[in-house]
C-alpha cells in the first residue's frame, strides 16, 4: 500500500504526549523580564493623562513605558492592515494607545518587572485619567445616524462599502420571480479560544543588533516582515522569528498584534529578554474575534423551483482597528461564496464594514466562508419552503451539475471540479433521510407531542488552498499567497525539507514526510521536516486557509520533481543512456525497457556530491527550492446533516446525530483528515449552540472568561458519522483540496437548518445562533402551534 493515502501515525506525537514539546511560554532566557500591559477598561475614552510614577517605583519594576516612549525611540510603531480594498479607511493603529482608547483591552502602557506577579501588582499603580466616551459595538448600530464616531476620517464608522455581482440583473430576477423569500439574521461573534494563549519571548542581542522573537505564530515570516516594515523598523535579516510548538491557532495566530511587537520593542529598549504571555481574559479581549454580521438576504425562484436570483446586504463589524487580513474576510472570502453549490444566474452581495468599539474581527476557522455558507444554506431552506419542496429536492434541482466544470460563478470564482449530487446522495443515505422525515411526520401527527425532531442540511462549498498571488493581488492583498519548499538531499541520501508552512496541530511533519517518501521511495525515517523558524526556512507564507497540503505540499512536490530531474541526468550519465530513457521508480533510476540497467537513489545522490563524474552542465550537490503559486483556489465541498431534538418544555437542544460527507480531493493521511473534520464540526457546533462573544452597550466584553463563554465539551457532542467522496483537484500535483476548515464552514448552517426545521410547525422562520435553551423556549412561548 502506498505511503500516500495511509493513516500513518503522527511523528509529532511522542514529544507532545510526554510533555517534551516546547511552546512559547515554556522558554525562558537569562535576565528575562516579564511584560504586563495596562489595558483600557473602557470601550471608548479619551486618555487625558498617564501617571506612571508610583508604578515605576514599585518593587521589582524595571521600566514602565507609554506611547510617548515608543514615539521618542523613532520606531515606526504601528500595526498595519495587509489587505486594502478600494476606498478603505485605514486609521493609524499604534502599538500603545496615544490620546484615545477604542476598545476594552486596548493597551496604554507596558510594565517590565523581574516577575510576572511584580509586573501585575505594579500595573494597578499606573494611573490613567480617562474621559469615557459613548461607544458603539454593533455593526448595524454603528452606521445609524448619531452613532458615536470612532474616527473622524471614517464618517458613519464605515471602513468600507463593498459590492460584488450584478445588482441590476439580480433586481430584475426578483421582479420577475414566481416566488421570493427573505430572512434577516445575525452571525454571532465568537472568540478563537486556542487553548494556548498568545505569548512572545523577545531577546535582543545588542552586540549583533539582532532580535530573536519566539512567539505563537501561524506564519513567522509574515510576522517578521510586518515587524520590519511597520512595527520595529529593524532590517528583516536582523529579526529571527521562531514559532515553536503552537497550541492551536484557528486564525488567531495569523494576525500581527500590538502585544508581541511591544514585547520586542521593550527588549530592544531595555536590552534584556522580555516575555509576555496573555491571560485567558487578555486573549479574549485582544485576539481577533470571528464573524459578527447582521444580514438580510433574499432568494428568488421560478415556477419550477429553480433559483433565479440571490442577494444579501451585510453589516460586518471590523472592530476598533483593521486587523492584518480583516478587510478580506467579509468581502473576498465571503461574497465570492454566494453561489454555493448552485447554478444561480444573478447574485448581488453588498457589505458594509464598520468600525466598532470592540476587539478587531479577522480570520477565524473558515473566515468569511462559514458566514457565507450560513447565509446561502439558510436561504436554500427558505427557498425550499417558498417553493413547497423538500430541502434536499430543492438543492438537487439547483446543483451545478458534475459535467458543468469548470464552472464560472456570478461572483468571481471559477470552480475547478466537484460532484455535488453524489455527496448529497451519500449523506442522505448515511443519515437515512427518508426514514428521518417519516419519523418526523409521525411525531408531528402525534397529538401527545413530545420532543421536536429537526433535520438540517448544509451543502457547503469553500474556496481554500489560498491562493493565486496575482488574483489576490488584484483584490487588494499586500502579499503573494504562494508557498515555498526547499528539499535538501544529504550526501548519504536522507532528506531535510524546509517548508514555509507552519503547523500548529495539523501534523505536517507526518503528511509532508509521506509526500516525500512516496515521491522518492525512501523511508519516512530518512526524512525530516523543518518549519516555523525564519532563520532556517526561506520566506514562507504560513498555515491558514486550509492551504498547507494544497499549496505547501505542492511546493514540496515541485522541489522533489526538480531533484528527480537532476537525479535522472546524473543516472543517465552514469549509465551512458539518454536522459529521456531514464525513469525513476521505487527509489531507483532505471533505463526504460532494460532490466538491470539501474542506479539506486543512494548512488546517484552520492555522485551528485562527489562530483567526480557529473555531466558537464551540472552543478554538484542536490538541493532544490521552489515557490509554488497555485493556479486557482481549491474547492472542497460536501453535505452535512444535523439531526436534533428539542424539548419544547425547556428549549433544550440535543444533537442526536451528525453526519458529514466531505470531499477534499485526494487524502494524504485519512486519519489526520478525519481529525480535522471532527475539530471543524465541533467548532461550528460551538458557534451554533453555545458560543457568543457579547459586548454591552458601553463596550464591556461580558463573556471574557471561560465561565461566561461556553466552549463545546466532550459530553455535549456526539460521535460524528463521516464518509467521503473523492474528486481530485485538477490543478495541483497532489490532487488535494484542503480540509482544515470544512467542518466549521458546514456545521453552523446544518444545525441552524435543523433547529428551524424542528420549529417549523410553530410558524418559526428563523432563530439566531447561538441556540440557547432560553432563546428556544422564549421563541416557543411567543408562538402557538
Amino acid at each position, binding site marked *: 500500500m502506498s505511503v500516500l493515502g495511509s493513516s500513518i*501515525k*503522527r511523528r*509529532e*506525537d*511522542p514529544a*507532545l*504526549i*510526554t*510533555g*517534551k*514539546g*516546547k*511552546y512559547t*511560554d*515554556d522558554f*525562558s532566557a537569562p535576565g528575562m523580564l516579564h511584560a504586563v500591559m495596562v489595558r483600557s477598561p473602557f470601550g471608548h475614552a479619551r486618555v487625558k493623562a498617564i501617571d506612571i510614577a508610583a508604578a515605576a517605583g514599585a518593587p521589582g519594576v524595571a521600566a514602565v513605558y507609554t506611547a510617548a516612549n515608543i514615539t521618542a525611540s523613532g520606531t515606526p510603531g504601528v500595526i498595519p492592515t495587509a489587505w486594502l480594498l478600494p476606498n478603505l479607511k485605514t486609521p493609524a493603529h499604534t502599538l500603545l494607545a496615544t490620546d484615545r482608547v477604542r476598545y476594552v483591552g486596548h493597551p496604554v502602557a507596558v510594565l517590565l518587572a523581574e516577575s510576572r*506577579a511584580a509586573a501585575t501588582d505594579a500595573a494597578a499603580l499606573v494611573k490613567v485619567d480617562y474621559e469615557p466616551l459613548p461607544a458603539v459595538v454593533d455593526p448595524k448600530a454603528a452606521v445609524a445616524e448619531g452613532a458615536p464616531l470612532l474616527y473622524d476620517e471614517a464618517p458613519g464608522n464605515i471602513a468600507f462599502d463593498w459590492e460584488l455581482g450584478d445588482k441590476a440583473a439580480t433586481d430584475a430576477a426578483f421582479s420577475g420571480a414566481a416566488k421570493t423569500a427573505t430572512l434577516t439574521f445575525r452571525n454571532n461573534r465568537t472568540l478563537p*479560544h*486556542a*487553548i*494556548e*494563549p498568545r505569548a512572545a519571548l523577545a531577546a535582543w542581542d545588542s552586540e549583533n543588533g539582532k532580535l530573536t522573537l519566539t512567539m505563537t505564530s501561524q506564519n513567522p515570516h509574515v510576522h517578521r516582515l510586518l515587524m520590519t516594515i511597520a512595527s520595529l523598523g529593524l532590517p528583516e535579516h536582523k529579526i529571527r522569528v521562531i514559532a515553536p*510548538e*503552537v*497550541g*492551536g491557532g*484557528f486564525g488567531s495566530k495569523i494576525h500581527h498584534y500590538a502585544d508581541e511587537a511591544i514585547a520586542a520593542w521593550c527588549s530592544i529598549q531595555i536590552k534584556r529578554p522580555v516575555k509576555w504571555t496573555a*491571560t*485567558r481574559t487578555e486573549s479574549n479581549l485582544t485576539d481577533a474575534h470571528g464573524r459578527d454580521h447582521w444580514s438580510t438576504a433574499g432568494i428568488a425562484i421560478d415556477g419550477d423551483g429553480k433559483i433565479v436570483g440571490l442577494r444579501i446586504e451585510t453589516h460586518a463589524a471590523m472592530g476598533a482597528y483593521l486587523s492584518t487580513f480583516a478587510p478580506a474576510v467579509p468581502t473576498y472570502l465571503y461574497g465570492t461564496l454566494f453561489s454555493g453549490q448552485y447554478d444561480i444566474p444573478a447574485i448581488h452581495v453588498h457589505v458594509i464594514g464598520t468600525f466598532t468599539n470592540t476587539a478587531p474581527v479577522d480570520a477565524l476557522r473558515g473566515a468569511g466562508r462559514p458566514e457565507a455558507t450560513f447565509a446561502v444554506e439558510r436561504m436554500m431552506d427558505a427557498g425550499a419552503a417558498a417553493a413547497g419542496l423538500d430541502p434536499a429536492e430543492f438543492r438537487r434541482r439547483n446543483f451545478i451539475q458534475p459535467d458543468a466544470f469548470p464552472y464560472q460563478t456570478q461572483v468571481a470564482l471559477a470552480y475547478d471540479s466537484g460532484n455535488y449530487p453524489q455527496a448529497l446522495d451519500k449523506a442522505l443515505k448515511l443519515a437515512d433521510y427518508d426514514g428521518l422525515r417519516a419519523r418526523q411526520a409521525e411525531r408531528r401527527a402525534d397529538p401527545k407531542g413530545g420532543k421536536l425532531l429537526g433535520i438540517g442540511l448544509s451543502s457547503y462549498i469553500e474556496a481554500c488552498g489560498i491562493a493565486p498571488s496575482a488574483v489576490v493581488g488584484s483584490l487588494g492583498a499586500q502579499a503573494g499567497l504562494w508557498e515555498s519548499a526547499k528539499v535538501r538531499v544529504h550526501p548519504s541520501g536522507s532528506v531535510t525539507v524546509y517548508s514555509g508552512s507552519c503547523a*500548529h*496541530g*495539523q*501534523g505536517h511533519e507526518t503528511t509532508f514526510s509521506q509526500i516525500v517518501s512516496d515521491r522518492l521511495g525512501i523511508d519516512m525515517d530518512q526524512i525530516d521536516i523543518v518549519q516555523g523558524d525564519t532563520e532556517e526556512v526561506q520566506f514562507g507564507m504560513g498555515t491558514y486557509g486550509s492551504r498547507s497540503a494544497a499549496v505547501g505540499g505542492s511546493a514540496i512536490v515541485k522541489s522533489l520533481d526538480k531533484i528527480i530531474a537532476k537525479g535522472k541526468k546524473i543516472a543517465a550519465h552514469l549509465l551512458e543512456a539518454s536522459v529521456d530513457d531514464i525513469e525513476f521508480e521505487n527509489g531507483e533510476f532505471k533505463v526504460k525497457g532494460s532490466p538491470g540497467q539501474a542506479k539506486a537513489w543512494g548512488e546517484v545522490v552520492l555522485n551528485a556530491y562527489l562530483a567526480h563524474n557529473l555531466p558537464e552542465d551540472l552543478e554538484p550537490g542536490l538541493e532544490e527550492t521552489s515557490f509554488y503559486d497555485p493556479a486557482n483556489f481549491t474547492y472542497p465541498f460536501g453535505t452535512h446533516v444535523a439531526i436534533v431534538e428539542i424539548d419544547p418544555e425547556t428549549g433544550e437542544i440535543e444533537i442526536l446525530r451528525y453526519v458529514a460527507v466531505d470531499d477534499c480531493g485526494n487524502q494524504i493521511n485519512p*486519519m*489526520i483528515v*478525519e*481529525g480535522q*473534520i*471532527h*475539530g*471543524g*464540526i*465541533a*467548532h461550528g457546533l460551538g458557534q451554533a449552540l453555545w458560543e457568543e462573544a457579547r459586548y454591552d452597550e458601553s463596550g464591556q466584553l461580558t463573556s471574557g*472568561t*471561560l*465561565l461566561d463563554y461556553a*466552549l*463545546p*465539551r*466532550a*459530553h455535549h*457532542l456526539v*460521535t*460524528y458519522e463521516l464518509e467521503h467522496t473523492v474528486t481530485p483537484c485538477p490543478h495541483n500535483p497532489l490532487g488535494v483540496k484542503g480540509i482544515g476548515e470544512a*467542518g466549521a464552514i458546514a456545521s453552523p448552517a446544518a444545525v441552524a437548518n435543523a433547529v428551524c426545521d424542528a420549529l417549523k410547525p410553530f410558524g418559526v422562520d428563523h432563530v439566531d445562533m447561538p441556540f440557547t435553551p432560553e432563546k428556544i423556549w422564549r421563541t416557543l412561548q411567543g408562538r402557538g402551534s
Partner: protein
Amino acid sequence: MSRHSVSTEVNGRLYEREVDARLLLSDFLRHELGLTGTHVGCEHGVCGACTVLLDGEPVRSCLIFAVQADGRKLATVEGLASSPDELHPLQQAFRDAHGLQCGFCTAGILMTMVPFLEENPAPTETQVREALSGNLCRCTGYQHIVDAVLLAAERRA
C-alpha cells in the same frame, strides 16, 4: 511578601524550594521546577490543561498554591511513561487513535484520564465523555480522544 518552604515529591523525586505564598502550583511546576509539560490555558480552573495528580487525585494546578503541595506527592505528564523508550498505555492509545493535534491540552487530559481508568477499567463512551467534560480541547472535536481512552481500556481488559 512572605516566603515559605515547600518540600514536595514530583514524579518520585523530592524538590525543596522557598516560594511566595501566592505562587500557583502550575507556575511552581513550570517555572521553579522546569516541568513545562504541564500547560496553563486559562488560570481560572475551567480548561483543565494544567491538571496534575496530587496524592493520586486529579487537581487543577492553577487553582492550588504551591505551598499546599508541601509534604505531598505530585505526578505530572513527565512521569507518566515508565522509561524514555516506552509510552504509558494511555499515551500509546492517544498516539494510535490520533487523540491529539496541537498537544496543548493533552497533558491535562492524560492526567485526568489515568485515574479515571484506574477507577473505571471498562467505561462506556458516555462515561468517558462525562469524565472528559472538565477538559477543553479546541482541535479534535473530542472524538479521537474518546476513541483513545476507550482503546486504552480495551487493551487493559
